[in-house]
């Protein structure tokens, strides 16, 4: 390592094999290459104790700064306080959590993202009062789905729209099978689908094909940080999808840390995210390396 190179820790509650996290990781690695500082990355698959342990390991190692997601609302209050006490800047990214005393937050506002999906369905008259919406999620109970569901509830509850969250798992073949089963059983009942994770939204096209449902018969919105989803949006299987700026989120988080560790405090949050439809999908397709 060259003189003056600093070490930052990038700690994620995501699963290493969750494709969207690959884009986040890419941003972090790009940043390390660009700046010459080193970034130690780790994934904790939603395991709170091991996530906490990693943050504390970073504090023990005397990190110059820490980028961390929040595996669960409120779960990092103490460790963030310890980092601050040790004069190590710590910035929250990807999943917001008000409780700890972060230096800043970089990423989407999950509550508002949930609200946007629901509102999109309502505004475009894709669902009406009394309808039923199906919301598959990879890991039920994980923070992202939970926050999003809250946002969705704010819109749907007053309209009397009901919904069900189902467990799709993180395994692609299993996801497709379970979603196909569910669609086959409930095809008549479902007015719309909200994919609460990238893997589920990205599987919609294959599920429709498998269940023999033509594109567009059931409206779909959800996460859109994968090539599968951008393709599905372009092909009409998914009506609108949410872009989270994953690479940018990591990059900005680390940049703000570098700035902070150089003595320029960050006093603001950076919010990301954009809901795209078929016309703009090509842009995000390109960012992720698709043709």
């Amino acid at each position, binding site marked *: 390592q060259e003189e003056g190179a600093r070490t930052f820790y990038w700690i994620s509650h995501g699963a290493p094999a969750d494709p969207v996290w690959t884009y986040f990781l890419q941003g972090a690695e790009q940043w390390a290459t660009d700046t010459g500082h080193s970034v130690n990355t780790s994934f904790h698959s939603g395991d709170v104790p091991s996530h906490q342990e990693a943050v504390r390991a970073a504090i023990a190692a005397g990190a110059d700064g820490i980028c961390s997601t929040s595996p669960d609302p409120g779960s990092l209050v103490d460790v963030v306080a310890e980092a601050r006490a040790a004069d190590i800047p710590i910035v929250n990214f990807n999943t917001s959590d008000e409780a700890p005393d972060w230096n800043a937050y970089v990423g989407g506002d999950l509550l508002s993202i949930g609200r946007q999906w629901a509102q999109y369905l309502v505004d475009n008259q894709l669902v009406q009062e009394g309808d039923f919406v199906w919301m598959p999620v990879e890991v039920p109970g994980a923070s992202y789905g939970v926050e999003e569901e809250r946002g969705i509830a704010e819109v749907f509850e007053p309209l009397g729209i009901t919904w069900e*969250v189902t467990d799709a798992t993180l395994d*692609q073949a299993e996801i497709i099978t379970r979603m196909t089963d569910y669609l086959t059983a409930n095809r008549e009942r479902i007015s719309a689908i909200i994919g609460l994770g990238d893997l589920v939204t990205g599987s919609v096209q294959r599920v429709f094909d498998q269940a023999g449902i033509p594109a567009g018969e059931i409206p779909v919105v959800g996460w859109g940080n994968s090539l599968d989803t951008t393709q599905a949006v372009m092909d009409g299987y998914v009506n609108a999808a949410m872009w989270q700026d994953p690479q940018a989120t990591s990059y900005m988080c680390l940049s703000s840390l570098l700035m902070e560790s150089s003595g320029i405090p960050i006093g603001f949050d950076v919010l990301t995210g954009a809901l795209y439809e078929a016309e703009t999908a090509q842009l995000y397709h390109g960012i992720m390396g698709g043709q």
Partner: protein
Amino acid sequence: MANSTSALPAHPPRPGALRAFVSKPEFGPLVLLVGMIVVFTSINPAFLSLTNIGNALTFTVELGFIALAMTLLMTAGEFDLSVGSVFGFAPVVMWTLVNTGTMPLGLAFLVALLLALGIGLISGLFVTRLAIPSFLVTLGMLLVVRGTALWLTDGFPQRTWNAGEQWLAQVLVGEICMGGEGVGCAGGLRIYMSLIWFAIIAVAFHYLLTGTRFGNWIQATGGNPGAARNRGVKTGRVKIILFMLSALLAAFAGAISSIRVSAANPNSGTGYELEVIAMVVIGGTVLTGGRGTIVGTVLGVLILRLMRNGIVMIGVPGLAYNIFIGAIILGMMALHSGLERRHNPGT
């Protein structure tokens, strides 16, 4: 009297074919399967519709491949926790080779299978030469293989969109539509070539286990390794071959699955190991080795997968899914144990 002994050696007296059938170890699982189908169909008749059957069988056989090989391995007294990760690893390798233009699909498929054989060989060598429990070896191997798949792809899924047109894809998972029409084979029964492969391999393995010398060695290796070794059976070699076979079939299943679902995700196959072992055990193969049944495993595979399909079909609340799966496993096992007891009251 000496005469009567040698006259009928191969055919012991049968106290009624029905009774013999009932006392077979596969009888319990069969009753469970039939009972389950009856219950689900009575709640939602669509459970037995052609579309649903075709759909349910698709993924079933992919796990089934692994379960078949695991049956042989478990009969020899070992098991393999790394099959799920090999299931994810093999297609990732295959499609990386294809997508980077390094080689055509057929060759890449072979390379993936060869790598899987290598993985099985290493597990087998660790277990037999170093005498490390297969639990630890294959758990370590699980992590290494899964990690390698991630590291190889940087975590990105490999795209497999145009697989469908290749001849190999047709041979492995070509669709066969019987009596239906259109994209989803509406109104008919759509099956994949993989089902036919599954049937072929199941018959072959059944025959291997019960009718060949190697099958005899597998059972002896699991039943009493000391005795088998004393008789000159190379128990180490038997186990190594079975570890390789189990990795091979996991890779084969992974490749098939990746072509069918058009996705090669380094993460796929997570957690399959426990499900596959559960299938084998429900079928009547014992965890500690010595006794195994391919017929039972086929029943076990169908029981566990149709159960998952049926639970969704009858409309169990989404978040209660696991409760039902778990409760059904427990309930069925209790029933099974009851059946066993009834026709074997002596012990």
